[in-house]
């Protein structure tokens, strides 16, 4: 297990480099001159040339790529061409909000999802399928509803009409109370969007496990239904849920971008949209890269947790 972990961590490096390649090439090989677009209307040839030099556009694609890669490995993501700060600084300022939102939503969706799924499994096994039908319907609707629509509905209902939660104003992460109030709704919305799917998967897995022979063995030796659920069903049924969590995180990251937009939160999403409009390409590059790295990291963690929980998997 330790060896596998180290090997996976080592695999991170080529994966991240791969991400870097994609991000760099997409922006570099795009049509048009980034320097020209960045400078806005009627830039002088001189300022364009200066900017191109600064952005490293005068080198060939490959040297530029290698340069950037080296920078990334050192932690240097370049400098913004619109502001005076470095890309890392800009990202560093906006990262916390996004991470808090996305992680909170993931943890909540998984925990609530498993509980709901277990409840639905228990009820179904007693013949009462109402919760299950509700979850199925909910999942169908949530999978067809984009996060921003849910966000707008939440905004309309809880902020504009009912006035329960604030949506604008200064946001200070350190102020826990304020943070909680500002993030409560976006996190809740993101959670609701993923909840039903996870719950359904949990329910199906748990029911499958409850029908397994080893649960029958345990029951035949006197284990109560509840103990069987806790000791056997949950453990085995959670394996698919773990896999789904990794994928869900990707969806959640996308969701945070629109949540930040709707609820005016100073996270990476807001910064990303702003820098796209400003044509501040180095920052765009860096932010997309960081999003991808976060996704890869979370998937790595869920994969390691899965392997730890299921000893049957051969650690290749």
């Amino acid at each position: 297990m330790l060896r596998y972990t180290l090997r996976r961590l080592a695999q991170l490096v080529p994966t991240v480099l791969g991400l870097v390649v994609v991000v760099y090439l997409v922006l570099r090989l795009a049509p048009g001159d980034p320097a020209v677009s960045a400078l806005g209307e009627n830039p002088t040839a001189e300022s364009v040339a200066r900017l191109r030099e600064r952005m490293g556009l005068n080198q060939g694609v490959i040297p530029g790529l290698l340069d950037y890669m080296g920078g990334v490995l050192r932690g240097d993501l370049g400098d913004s061409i619109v502001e005076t700060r470095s890309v890392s600084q800009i990202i560093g300022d906006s990262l916390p909000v996004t991470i808090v939102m996305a992680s909170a939503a993931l943890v909540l969706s998984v925990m609530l999802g498993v509980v709901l799924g277990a409840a639905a499994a228990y009820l179904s096994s007693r013949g009462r399928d109402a919760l299950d039908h509700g979850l199925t319907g909910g999942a169908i609707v949530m999978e067809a509803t984009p996060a921003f629509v849910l966000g707008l509905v939440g905004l309309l209902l809880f902020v504009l009409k009912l006035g329960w939660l604030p949506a604008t104003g200064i946001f200070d992460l350190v102020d826990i109370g304020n943070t909680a109030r500002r993030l409560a709704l976006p996190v809740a919305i993101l959670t609701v969007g993923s909840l039903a799917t996870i719950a359904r998967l949990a329910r199906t897995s748990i029911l499958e496990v409850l029908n397994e022979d080893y649960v029958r063995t345990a029951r035949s030796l006197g284990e109560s239904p509840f103990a069987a659920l806790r000791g056997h069903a949950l453990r085995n049924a959670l394996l698919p849920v773990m896999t789904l969590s990794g994928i869900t995180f990707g969806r959640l990251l996308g969701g945070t971008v629109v949540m930040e937009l709707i609820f005016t939160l100073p996270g990476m999403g807001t910064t990303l949209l702003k820098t796209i409009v400003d044509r501040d390409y180095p920052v765009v590059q860096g932010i997309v890269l960081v999003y991808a790295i976060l996704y890869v990291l979370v998937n790595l963690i869920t994969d390691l947790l899965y392997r730890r929980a299921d000893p049957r998997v051969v650690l290749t």
Partner: protein
Amino acid sequence: MSVAPLLSVRDLHVQFGARRSVVRAVNGVDFDLAPGERFAVVGESGSGKSVMSLALLRLLPRNALIPSGTIRLAGRDVLSLTERDLGRLRGRDAAMVFQDPMSSLNPVLRIGRQITAPMRRHLGADEDHAHARAVELLGEVGLPDPERAMRTFPHELSGGMRQRVLIAMALSCRPSLIIADEPTTALDVTVQAQIIRLLTRLSEEHSVAMILVTHDLGIVARFAQRVAVMYGGRFVEVGTVDEIFYDPRHPYTEGLLRSIPHTGAERTELLYQIDGFPPDPTSLPPGCAFEPRCTCSIEVCRNQVPALEGEEGGHAARCWVAVGDRVHRRVELVR
């Protein structure tokens, strides 16, 4: 019976489904089991033997129904126990060993954890005591290096070894009865013999009564003291192992015995088989269930279910036609 029976089953019926087609799996089973006795129930697939064995500890699936009958185990009425008392009964007074060792253990938990669980639950044993006893049990059932086995996962063991683990688990809380439902069917032939020998030895050494459910007459001979032959959800013949093998009284038993291939037969001799198929449990005939396939049936066999006749508590058979009166003929099978 001179000693009070450990297990007493009367008129047990088990059925599945309620609406259009009811599957009548068990149709009136009676027997007593003495403490320490080894009892084998033999029958084809669909005879109801597995269902009956599951019913004894109420391990049937949700759609099963026990419309009538009583099961008394260690003085308690099993069918009227609460879930909680049932949980206390299972594993402690009686335990089961199931057919498929490959899937009967939780793949993600170590053997040690699974085998000590019943002891911790029923006997209140602490971790160390349970561990020690588990190692002892694993040694008794023939696992090499029991200490190491405690730390392994099920998939690291062979089928035979897993079955031994399951037997050890069944023994762990010193039950007075072990019910083994086809414990060797999923194993290699050589391993089968070992497991049966193991069960016999454990029964003798620990005075544990055992019910062995199987379709294989061959393993019955070594193991059992008494045998019941089951067909169509009923016992059609009951007796000691010698009585069944040397003095079969039911045509079905005779057929089963004749079907056993034997060494020394001529190479060109065809294997005997009983013509026809087991009855459809959703539509059992009104009379004897074996009648459609029987070569010596008479009119009454078609209309009335024969009672189990014979010496009280001794050799009995469920057949209208006395052994001496049987006239065998060719059977026209109605398809």
